[in-house]
């Protein structure tokens, strides 16, 4: 049983004079208090307080700083942007509204009843089977992971799991994904500029262990992921954590009503995680490592597990009116959001603390982990207290919703916050310029003298291609007993898969999860990156057995300095490509997030990350029989290529290895691809497909080798001669998939997919046979599959 908690003994706050000050003086206050509020923001706050004829308390200023922070308000995505491209200028009235919300609204009209909620809750839901719904949320925890890799990643995953527990009246978390962008693990330490920058190896190990210890203890399988390596990420690593969930349709709607009690449950409140929301909205520099560690929270997954048990049982008992999690901004954002329309009164002295002596603002703004806030009917309080006792977690009645429309926070009888939130929701709009010019592209310098077997070995050994097995095995990807398509499968259980599929308790249907991240593409052609990320996600989900017409996607952006017009210009172009693809695939966005200021001030100037887009998605798999893996299953199967390769090698692993940076990046033909994916889905439903693996990083040669890594047989293929041989091997053309089909189904497949660029390219050969790739009459690659597999399987083992 828990010990008696500490509480504050007095209110500690001060009044901050803002009325009558000049904008410069206001800005000085923002800087002195690390509020991260801009000059216009401070002026707007001043106008508010002048209108109510008093000066704010420091608690109120902190509340406004958190509410208007980039982290919480996404002001760059809401900004008015003047975008210059190809000599023309256009106005983008909010990236979010233009390229995310409108796209989704239009799709919702086309697919009524599929999207059940989007954008307004902690995660958006789509229909699974008419009675259950599924959701996915992905968050970044970049700056905390840069300075405290273990704790940063630990609480990154902990936070996104709470988003799922706080979605609807509480969804069951079913599976997690993790995507990391780091410097190469073999980076020479002497090349790193900046004293306190943690070497990528330290980041990698700390982050993986942080994710492991949270996910495994929570009992949520980590089933999907990816890692990208680029020198720029050495200074500002990216850590994306995502969790999918399931809920009954009837538990999605939630509402705070006047008269309800506001309840907080879970961990106690301390000084850990102060100003995390504002910290993550600034860039990093050497001082961050020393001065901002207070901003990194400390995770306790067992506390969160107890809270999860409490929430899910309270939901099933119908005791929850509204629930949300304490993330960035702590009680201020959780309770503030909850009471923003209805209004209410909270009492800080009731809050159990980890330590004594917290100031009023620290209690209200602390980002201590594992806390959830609920609104419940007054007569539900005793039953909830009993549940909290059952699961050995702490709960207290924080205050009441009162219908006044005013957020009131008192502390030992003194009013420390009294704000009309409806007037504070709209932060001043930002206005930003952006520009983008596509650099001239040159034809790829094909080189007939390249030793192609060596080239394939080197592509397969690339950090972007090698197996993540040492990391995947540290995550429990089987807990809950529902992981049907595992991240590693095939006859020896160690071959890669395009995505993962989880069975869902209480449903005949399953949920596939897939993702795509291609930062290398965006360096040349961000529009192409936007297209390709959506295409690859849809392709992954389809290959796994999901219906391409019933999937939902998420956009997670990480960008350097948005005040640099060229960086913002790349973001705008990426958004355009992404929106174009999402519209064509009719793939709605149900959640998304953006993270800015991902750059590091070195002595030689700022190092910014490449504009990075992670698209992730969930798709409905109608029947367990449709689940399709990426591993070769039988000897003597026919091997087909679905889709046409192009000779555009820009952005590919091969081009990067050849140090070619000016080649054209392929543009996904989404309309054609959608018809292809629909036809493939019908073929999967008809049982024609033994395995399917997409052509992505490393090209067709890598795809074929990876299929053969299952150990079931060799592969002998004649490469398409419509493109030069290096493109045939290594082009990463969107829309292309390799299929394994039994000989008896070959005719049926050809009639089903004949109109969709289907080409028979070869067959699987006997067990222990080689990988043989022919081009014309020549065997251009002929090697032992186990040799290739050793390179691929052990690429990361020296480092992790």
């Amino acid at each position: 049983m828990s010990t008696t908690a500490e509480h504050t003994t007095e209110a500690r706050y001060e009044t901050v004079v803002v009325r009558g000050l000049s904008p410069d003086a206001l800005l000085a206050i923002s800087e002195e208090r690390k509020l991260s509020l801009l000059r216009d923001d401070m002026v707007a706050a001043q106008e508010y307080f002048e209108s109510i004829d008093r000066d704010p308390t420091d608690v109120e200023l902190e509340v406004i700083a958190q509410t208007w922070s980039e982290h919480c308000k996404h002001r760059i995505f809401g900004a008015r942007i003047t975008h210059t491209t190809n000599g023309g200028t256009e106005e983008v009235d909010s990236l979010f509204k233009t390229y995310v919300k409108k796209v989704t609204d239009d799709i919702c009209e086309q697919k009524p009843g599929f999207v059940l909620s989007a954008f307004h809750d902690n995660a958006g839901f789509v229909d699974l089977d008419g009675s259950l719904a599924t959701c996915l949320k992905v968050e970044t925890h970049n700056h905390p992971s840069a300075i405290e890799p273990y704790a940063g990643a630990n609480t990154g995953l902990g936070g996104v799991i709470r988003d799922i527990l706080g979605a609807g009246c509480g969804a069951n978390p079913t599976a997690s994904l993790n995507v990391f962008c780091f410097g190469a693990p073999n980076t020479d330490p002497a090349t790193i500029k900046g004293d306190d920058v943690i070497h990528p190896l330290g980041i990698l190990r700390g982050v993986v262990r942080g994710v492991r210890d949270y996910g495994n203890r929570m009992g949520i399988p980590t089933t999907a992921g990816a890692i990208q390596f680029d020198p720029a990420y050495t200074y500002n690593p990216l850590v994306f954590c995502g969790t999918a969930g399931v809920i009954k349709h009837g538990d999605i709607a939630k509402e705070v009503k006047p008269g309800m009690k506001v309840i907080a449950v879970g961990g106690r409140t301390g000084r850990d995680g102060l100003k995390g929301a504002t910290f993550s909205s600034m860039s990093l520099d050497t001082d961050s490592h020393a001065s901002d560690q207070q901003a990194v929270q400390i995770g306790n997954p067992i506390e969160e597990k107890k809270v999860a048990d409490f929430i899910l049982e309270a939901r099933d008992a119908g005791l929850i009116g509204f629930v949300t999690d304490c993330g960035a901004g702590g009680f201020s954002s959780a309770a503030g959001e909850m009471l923003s329309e209805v209004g209410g009164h909270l009492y800080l002295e009731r809050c159990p603390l980890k330590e004594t002596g917290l100031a009023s603002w620290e209690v209200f703004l602390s980002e201590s982990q594992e806390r959830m806030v609920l609104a419940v009917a007054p007569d539900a309080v005793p039953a909830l207290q009993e549940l909290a006792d059952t699961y050995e977690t702490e709960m207290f009645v924080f205050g009441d919703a009162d219908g006044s429309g005013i957020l009131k926070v008192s502390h030992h009888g003194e009013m420390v916050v009294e704000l009309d939130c409806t007037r504070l929701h709209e932060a001043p709009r930002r206005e930003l310029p952006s520009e983008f010019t596509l650099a001239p592209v040159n034809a790829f310098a094909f080189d007939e003298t390249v030793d192609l077997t060596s080239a394939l070995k080197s592509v397969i050994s690339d950090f972007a291609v090698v197996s993540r097995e040492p990391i995947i095995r540290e995550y429990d990807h089987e807990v809950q007993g529902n992981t049907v398509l595992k991240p590693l499968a095939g006859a020896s259980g160690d071959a890669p898969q395009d995505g993962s599929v989880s069975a869902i308790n209480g449903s005949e249907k399953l949920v596939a999860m897939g993702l795509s991240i291609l930062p290398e593409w965006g360096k040349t052609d961000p529009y192409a990156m936007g297209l390709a990320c959506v295409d690859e996600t849809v392709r992954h989900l389809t290959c796994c057995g999901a219906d391409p017409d019933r999937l939902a996607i998420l956009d997670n952006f990480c960008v350097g300095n948005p005040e640099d017009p060229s960086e913002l210009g790349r973001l705008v172009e990426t958004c355009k490509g992404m929106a174009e693809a999402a519209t064509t695939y009719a793939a709605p966005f149900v959640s998304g997030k953006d993270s800015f200021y991902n750059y590091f001030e070195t002595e030689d100037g700022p190092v910014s990350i490449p504009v990075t887009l992670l698209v992730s998605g969930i798709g409905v798999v109608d029947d367990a029989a449709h689940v399709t893996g990426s591993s070769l299953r039988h000897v003597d199967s026919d091997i087909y290529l679905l889709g046409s390769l192009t000779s555009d090698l820009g952005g590919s692993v091969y081009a990067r290895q050849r140090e070619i940076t000016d080649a054209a990046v392929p543009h996904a033909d989404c309309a054609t691809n959608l018809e292809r994916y629909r036809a493939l889905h019908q073929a999967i439903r008809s049982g024609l497909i033994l395995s399917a693996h997409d052509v992505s990083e490393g090209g067709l040669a890598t795809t074929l080798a990876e299929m053969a890594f299952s150990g079931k047989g060799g592969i002998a293929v004649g490469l398409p001669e419509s493109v030069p041989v290096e493109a045939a091997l290594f082009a990463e053309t969107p829309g292309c998939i390799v299929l394994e089909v039994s000989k008896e189904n070959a005719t049926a497949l050809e009639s089903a997919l004949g109109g969709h660029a289907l080409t028979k390219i070869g067959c699987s050969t006997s067990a222990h046979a080689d990988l043989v790739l022919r081009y014309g009459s020549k065997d251009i690659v002929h090697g032992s599959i186990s040799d290739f597999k050793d390179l691929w399987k052990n690429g990361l083992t020296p480092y992790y």
Partner: protein
Amino acid sequence: MEKRPHALLLKFPGTNCDVETARALESAGFSTKVVPIARANEDVLSGVDLVVLSGGFSYGDYVMAGRLAQLETERRLGDALKKFHADGGYLLGICNGFQILTKLGILPGGSLIDNTSGRFQCRWATLKNHRPDSAFLKHLPEEFELPVAHAEGRFVTAGDEALSYINDGLAALTYTEDINGSTAAIAGLLDETGRALGLMPHPERFLEARHHYDPDWKAQDGKGSGYWMFKSLYEAIAA
């Protein structure tokens, strides 16, 4: 109608395999009830045929895996669990449950410590069935596969008791290859009565053929090996 054998699943803060373990037990014919430890007392054992400690990280396993759960079980239930067992009751501990049963002294002496790799390992393991005569393993073949997922699964003893467990037949399950550094590759142990089994692998994760990593795995009646473990136990208790 004949009463179904009843299984009680004790749940600690951090236990996280109770849902799928209850599902596995029910698929084999048991009725089940999950009881959080804060609500457990001697009375919860009445009418119970099988007590199951399922996998997870009780209290975070920050001290030694299973140690706090052992203390809390003794505080809540006193001798009742041991009495239940002595009176003919069955006990099953999976993963963290194996660690707790070992700490409770119900299983043969020894400790489950950090894997020699120092890492959590989530993979599949082939197991050798040394006790097809036991209540738990009757329907299982000489060798079968189950998933493992643990960081502290290396079974060790102070002297060479572990080897004697092999000779005495208490080591009901061994790995066919080195998974975690366990002495004599021990994966699961029976107690002297044959009514308590602890094992590190997760039978509840392999109920159906589709749970196997290889889509072409040939199933016995479409069921996974884990199902047959629960079915064996069901038949032994229902008989």
